């Protein structure tokens, strides 16, 4: 929240997330994937580009455990990590 009390100047307006809120992982079902991801980040000096596979795994774990709405990974920006399936690509690309 913006603490600047100067009216008339632009103040930060938070936006709701596109796909809503993550349900909390109360049972730690995806904790292993998270640990793998964090370890990868620490090993690569927090470079996100190198740990995208682990983040994709974490999100897939979430989807499997009903902690996230199921969506094709391309829509979450992981299309470069998907191996192009031989004949299904035509049906999957456009929703």
């Amino acid at each position: 929240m913006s603490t600047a009390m100067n009216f008339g100047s632009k103040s930060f307006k938070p936006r709701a997330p596109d796909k809503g809120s993550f349900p909390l992982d109360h049972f730690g079902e995806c904790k292993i994937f998270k640990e793998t991801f964090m370890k990868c980040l620490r090993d690569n000096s927090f470079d996100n580009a190198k740990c995208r596979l682990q983040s994709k795994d974490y999100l897939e774990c979430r989807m499997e455990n009903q902690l996230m709405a199921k969506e094709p990974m391309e829509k979450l920006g992981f299309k470069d990590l998907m191996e192009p399936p031989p004949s299904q690509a035509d049906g999957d690309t456009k929703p």
Partner: protein
Amino acid sequence: MLFQLLRTPLCGSPAVFSGCVRSLRCTPCRTLLHKPPPQSRGLKTRSKKTRSQEEEWRSRNRTLLTYIAAAGVGMIGLSYAAVPLYRLYCQATGLGGTAVAGHDADQVETMEPVKDRILKITFNADTHASMQWNFRPQQSEIYVVPGETALAFYRAKNPTNKPIIGISTYNVVPYDAGQYFNKIQCFCFEEQRLNPHEEVDMPVFFYIDPEFDEDPRMARVDTITLSYTFFEAKEGQKLPLPGYSYS
């Protein structure tokens, strides 16, 4: 009296008086010929004159009233049109933190990462004074490029013996970079309940809009800070989602 004198030459009476008058006032006499003799009509002519004048005034009033009415209607219409026009203006200039046009969910699928522009995202976690959770980020910073989706984690622990419901909001600095910071999914703006002595991981899935690289105002921005603050929520309290959704 003057008109009376002039009238006699019209009738053609050969009085010296009239001849004198004729020589002296020939031209005005001729001009008067074309005008309707005012004297004989008397009241009628005056009323005719005032009647035509009245009509003229009336028609002038009517046009004036029409103009005023048109201006009034125009003002009302303008005040109604101002709402979408202002919204368009805000979108074009990014005033008031409104989302810049071109920010839609389908972009995630098609955007290309801008590989040569590396940005450092630092994370900050705060709690309200009365909020007893331990809330902290699990990484101090992460290096991303615009157009690439990234995942980050926070951790929250409830050290007390009773369940606490928290609700969070976020802030992005620098302010202008905030409009390029898009969250796909996070844990904010919804009540999150933590049972006693429970600890959870809270992910944030976000990306920086690739247009960030093309904005000249962002040319020297290398660090963006994402700051989350947790507040305690009362049971059953429903907060409206912030912002005005344009998509």
